[in-house]
């Protein structure tokens, strides 16, 4: 008899909003800034559109891409690039469960 599965389940990739993020809502979406550690304030401030703002809001407690897409009201494949960009900019953090 063969075991039904010998490989562990693939971890589900989740994202959460960077807890060091400072943000303000504006009519066009959101302005965010990563809190700086340096007195020289090498911070970047990003202006994000309404879709990105809704993804950040949805990622407050950690969410999968599918959850984020559902919250933003768009198909999952439409936010892949956005989520990747937000993660690269450290606005979102990858967490793996």
């Amino acid at each position, binding site marked *: 008899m063969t075991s039904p599965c010998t490989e562990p389940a693939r971890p589900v990739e989740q994202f959460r909003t960077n807890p060091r993020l400072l943000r303000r809502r504006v*009519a066009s979406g959101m302005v965010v*800034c990563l809190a*700086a550690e340096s*007195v020289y*304030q090498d911070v970047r401030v990003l*202006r994000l559109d309404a879709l990105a703002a809704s993804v950040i809001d949805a990622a407050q407690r950690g969410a999968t891409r599918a959850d984020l897409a559902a919250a933003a009201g768009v198909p999952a494949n439409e936010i892949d690039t956005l989520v990747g960009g937000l993660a690269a900019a450290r606005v979102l953090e990858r967490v793996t469960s």
Partner: protein
Amino acid sequence: MTTGLVLPPPPPSPSSQMAIAAGPFAALGLAAASTATSPAGLEADEWDALLARLTDEHLAGIVLDGADRGLVSLRDDQHEALLAVHEAAMVATLRLESFLLVVRNLLGERGLDMRVLKGPSCAHLDYEQPELRAFTDIDVLVRGEQFDAVAACLSAAGMQRRFDEPRPGFTARFGKGVCFTAANGLELDVHRALTAGPFGLGDASALWRRSDSFVLAGSSVECLAREERAVAAAVHACLGSTAPRLVPLRDVAQILSQEVDIDRVISVSDELGVRSVLARAILLARATLALDAPLAGEAWALGYRPTRRERQLLHAYITDDRSYAGQMLAGARAVKGLGARVEYVRALALPNRDYLDDREHRYGTRARRAARLITGRSRGAQRRQDGTP
């Protein structure tokens, strides 16, 4: 007979002489707000003037929020213009909050206490959304006995101290504080007291007994407790400039429109020696913002009878010829204790050489300037007493 605090209106700033009053815009969203003129019906030049004023007073967020709530109507182009101003203000605000965290960490690592004043604390604790309260610098209160250590810490971190003090230790004991500029141009006002001069010489320990806190990027930041924030907002609104700015007045109205222990507010103002300032700020907020309903403490403020001395001290701040030097001179009368008063006067009359070189250059010139201020103030006080213009 003494007169009450229903003082003549403050001299209008040039921009407030325009046709559209900006005060009601600063009150948008408050339950007691009156109806503001809807910008949608304004002519181009009227709108340009109003936009300039709203920008200068940092009110874009409040007006946009008022439009969202249907309290005022905006044309599309007006909405776009305000949005651009608001977005720029929010960018600045976030950079400042990030800077605040740096300062908090610097001081915290050295065991130095700090309480946030004004902007960030009001934005996060008093307004419905932090987006409604923009600010352009960071203000923190530090303990007088730790003031010099704080200044040394910030200087060591690369911040530039904007002004010297007349003699070592003067600010820690008698001064309002000092402004520091970071390498990127952001400004930090480090306060020992809420204001300069006689109204800043009360017992600042009243501000340190309690505190509130708010969370920034996962970090808890301490600030004044609500009633103390109300007093600080009143001092800022009433004494911060000759013509009161609208956001500090909105802060006063915002805090006093919520659940607040007004007896405690008055008691704190008493300990700080600024009861007349609080009373005037409450009345100014009601009148300038054109509120339809009274604020907490308004009955007390209407009945408050400032002493002759309080009225004289107020004039060091609210007249057209207000100056830092004039306020510091007026402070000589408010310093408690003969020894302390002698030290205060000696430091101002005979400052160290660097301080003098940045200003009058010669002790004689400084003495003549002081004499002019004293005699000018005396003549002004006499005119006010006589009721002559």
